[in-house]
């Protein structure tokens, strides 16, 4: 979870990393009461990077310019994100700008210190000067000094810069940060040091340790609070041309199903994972039905979805629950689905209908009136074929315990 600049700076202030006096603005009219002396820099408070190049940072000399600039910034989305606040900060004359960061390296399983003498907005220049120090064991000040020297600092600058790195490290440990960055860290002609911009990413999974940070992050966020581990979640896989929705109890298996469909020249569209919290291994009957229903609804929200490929682990009572979940989401009764191999191509939703459906906001229940219910193939991993065959089935669903046979069933439906 990313903190906004002003939130990051609040943390910097807590540990004694120097930041400029600033003021938070959420209405351009507040600029008239600005306490920060001109010239001032106004900065859009968004989580995405690159706001400088996108016009989210403006320098102003007086109140009239400031009000106009504030209005412009508050109405300017940065990569789709509108700022709710802007930060007015005193302008600072830097002689040198450094880049400093600390991040967790998953391959090394260590925290690494990063630094570049060429901080600022030019990413290529910044990277060309990048130096790295791996903190091998317990942290000690010399790691920070090593970074300062590696990036080419000398004499009087080594100590104050390494001191900043040490304070950043302290924050990273104290607050379970994924990463902390200061860019630029300005050094003035007189040797004064100032953190002009900061980026702090809190580890979502460590949320439980730091309720304060999460309160901070969710401030003014219109209910956009991310839960840490959702139990049902959509995968980011998207194929806009696809017509098969996959509902599955694990990401690795879902990937296999996607590949098998693709190799058979089928068009998987998207995928929903259920039971992520328990690796798809354990559901109460209620939760299984509930997650199946919500997963189906999410997949069927795209009118292009003509097929549902459901793949979960077999258990004896699950066929009943799957049928109940499907029956509660889809209504098969008005016109039963045709037998496999049957041709009902003409009755499928056309593209025009699809567009119409997409435009009109549909209440949830309207899935029941979905013109032609999607074809549904259920593959039960580890399924006992005898038991599967002997169980009574109410709905026109294809059942199998063989992944490739399931793919062929979809092939045959076409």
């Amino acid at each position, binding site marked *: 979870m*990313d903190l906004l600049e002003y939130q990051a700076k609040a943390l910097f202030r807590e540990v004694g990393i120097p930041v400029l006096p600033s003021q938070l603005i959420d209405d351009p009219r507040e600029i008239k009461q600005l306490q920060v002396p001109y010239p001032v820099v106004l900065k859009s408070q968004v*989580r*995405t*990077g*690159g706001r400088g190049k996108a016009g989210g940072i403006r320098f102003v000399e007086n109140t009239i310019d400031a009000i106009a600039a504030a209005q412009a910034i508050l109405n300017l989305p940065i*990569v789709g994100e509108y700022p709710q606040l802007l930060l007015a900060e005193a302008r600072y004359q830097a002689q040198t700008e450094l*880049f400093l*960061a600390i*991040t*967790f*390296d*998953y*391959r090394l*399983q260590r925290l*690494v210190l*990063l630094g570049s003498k060429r901080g600022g907005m030019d*990413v290529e220049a910044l*990277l060309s000067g990048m130096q*790295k120090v791996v903190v091998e*064991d317990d942290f000690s000040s010399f790691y920070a000094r090593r970074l300062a020297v590696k990036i080419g600092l000398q004499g009087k600058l080594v100590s104050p810069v390494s001191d900043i790195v040490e304070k950043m490290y302290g924050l990273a*440990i104290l607050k*379970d940060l*994924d*990463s902390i*960055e200061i*860019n630029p860290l300005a050094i003035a002609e007189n040797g004064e040091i100032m953190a002009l911009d900061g980026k702090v990413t809190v*580890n979502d*999974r*460590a949320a*439980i*340790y730091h309720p304060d940070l999460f309160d901070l992050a969710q401030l003014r966020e219109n209910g956009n609070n991310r839960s*840490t*581990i959702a139990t049902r979640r959509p995968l*980011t*896989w*998207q*194929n806009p041309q696809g017509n098969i929705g996959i509902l*599955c109890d*694990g*990401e*690795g*298996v*879902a*990937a*296999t199903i*996607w*590949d*098998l469909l693709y*190799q058979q020249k089928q068009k998987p569209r998207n995928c929903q994972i259920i039971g992520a919290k*328990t*690796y*798809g*291994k*354990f559901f109460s009957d209620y939760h299984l039905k509930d997650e199946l229903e919500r997963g189906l609804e999410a997949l069927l929200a795209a009118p292009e979805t003509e097929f549902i490929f459901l793949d979960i*682990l*077999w258990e004896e009572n699950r066929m009943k629950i799957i049928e109940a979940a499907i029956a509660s989401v889809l209504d098969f009764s008005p016109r039963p689905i045709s037998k496999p191999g049957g041709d009902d191509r003409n009755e499928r939703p056309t593209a025009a209908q699809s567009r119409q459906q997409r435009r009109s906001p549909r209440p949830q229940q309207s899935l029941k009136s979905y013109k032609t219910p999607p074809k549904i193939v259920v593959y039960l*991993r*580890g399924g006992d074929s005898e038991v599967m065959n002997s169980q009574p089935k109410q709905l026109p669903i294809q059942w199998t315990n063989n*992944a*490739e046979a399931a793919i062929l069933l979809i092939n045959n439906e076409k």
Partner: protein
Amino acid sequence: MNNEQLSMNNWQSRKILVQGITEPLAIHAVAKMKDYGTNIVAGVGIGRGGEEIAGVPVFDLVEEAIAKVETVYMSIIFVPPNQILDAVLEAMAANIPRLILVTNHIPPLDMMRLFRKAKANKTVVLGGGSAGIIVPERVLLGICEARCYTPGNVALIGRSTGLLDEVAWELTRGGIGQSIAIDLGNGEAIGSGFSDWLTLLAKDRKTKAIALLESAMMGNEEAADLIPPHFKKPIFVYVSGRFVPIMPFSQDTTKLILSRCSTSFAHGSTAEAKLAACDRAGIPVANSPSQLAKLLQEALKSEVKIKQKPILTSNHESTKLS
């Protein structure tokens, strides 16, 4: 676990502890493990000492459990992510030499401390986010779905619970049994890896061939790069998710910078990288679980005829099928 015959050990005599036994997944898993004959002797559930779960006595502390049941061979840990470091430290303080971490999503700094301590202590850690180990019809340690597995001579190593079950099921249906299946875990960082387990499987007499199961964007390593030198048993790789459209990571400048200079994403190894590693190592790649079954079947047949041939000279045909 050196010099062990993993798939042939006398598992009945080995005492297994379950930490976090009061978690819903643990309750479900303990019943299944007991049914399978796993010798679970005690559980730890904070505040639930004195109770019984699926016939297993529950204690508040690991040391209380140890006092009662004496030496424990392994602990399987199900506690919530924020309690995992404590659970591991408690197990190590009680000298339990092997740990399976079913728990996933461990905060990174806890994870860093955990693995550092485990290494210093020479504790073997499987996971986080591991489904554990199954030796078909001998022992179930964790949450693999037993009905997908059948005894045989193929060892499976993977990093995804579902995929392990899926491939085992495909092999079982194709008449190919398994000597053992090991889930390294899909955690952001894991303890023991492909090379550690391959070293053990090299000595396992029941294991005649090995399948490494990989998934796109799982881990930061490529299994084929991690095969110990001069490895004699035939190895095959299956990579799931080769055709899955992977969204690019965040376009955020900060993250791009960090990811250019460090491995700041937990799972960054692409299917292409994994396949390229197989190509470099000359490891045959299966395009699907059923093709993997066919490759393994051929390998097991030739295993009977000629003694053994090093994998590096094995034919490249299967890779070309892709």
